[in-house]
């Protein structure tokens, strides 16, 4: 069964460092998303991406964040200069259309020291 895959599963970084989280969405899906979940809290929307551009973003997704689809399969989230409060599980998701079910990846746990 097709699935969303994410790498790395866990990354530890020093405050101020750049981090890139990678995702391979389901191959026939057109819409891509990043969500995050701080430990023990609810899942929060970061950004949605369609047709090589951002379609929606939340207040969390500030100038330190960027997304890119560098080729036909990968979808990346970059955090330019990590802060302690960026520590969270980051989930990539994809969907066929812009309404309907999202399919989530296993997540990338980011720990900022």
């Amino acid at each position: 069964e097709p699935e969303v895959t994410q790498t790395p599963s866990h990354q530890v970084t020093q405050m101020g460092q750049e981090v890139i989280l990678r995702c391979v969405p389901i191959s026939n899906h057109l819409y891509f998303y990043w969500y995050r979940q701080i430990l023990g809290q609810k899942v929060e929307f970061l950004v949605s991406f369609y047709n090589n551009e951002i379609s929606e973003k939340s207040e969390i997704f500030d100038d330190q964040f960027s997304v890119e689809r560098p080729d036909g399969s990968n979808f990346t989230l970059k955090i330019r200069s990590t802060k302690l409060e960026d520590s969270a599980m980051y989930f990539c998701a994809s969907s066929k259309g812009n309404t309907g079910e999202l399919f989530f990846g296993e997540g990338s746990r980011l720990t900022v020291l």
Partner: protein
Amino acid sequence: ELKVEQNPLFLSMQEGKNYTIYCNYSTTSDRLYWYRQDPGKSLESLFVLLSNGAVKQEGRLMASLDTKARLSTLHITAAVHDLSATYFCAVDMAGTGNQFYFGTGTSLTVIP
């Protein structure tokens, strides 16, 4: 901002018992989703409810949606230990595409 509230936040129940988890949301939407999350794992889609009055069942779980009341329920019938997990509802606010607003989650523990 759309608010999505679940109750209870924590639920401990014995095997074989029935219980209902409630999901209330603050603005108009006719699309609601239920997800399951095991500790340290991803979000597994359980139900997609796309209209008022929608009811879906899978095994011991049944979900319903009342858009007029802005309420969805997840009913658990004859709970078993394997249902222990955190359950999230998520609402897709009209006009925002798939910008899901997740509820606070309900941590369910089924005791043998």
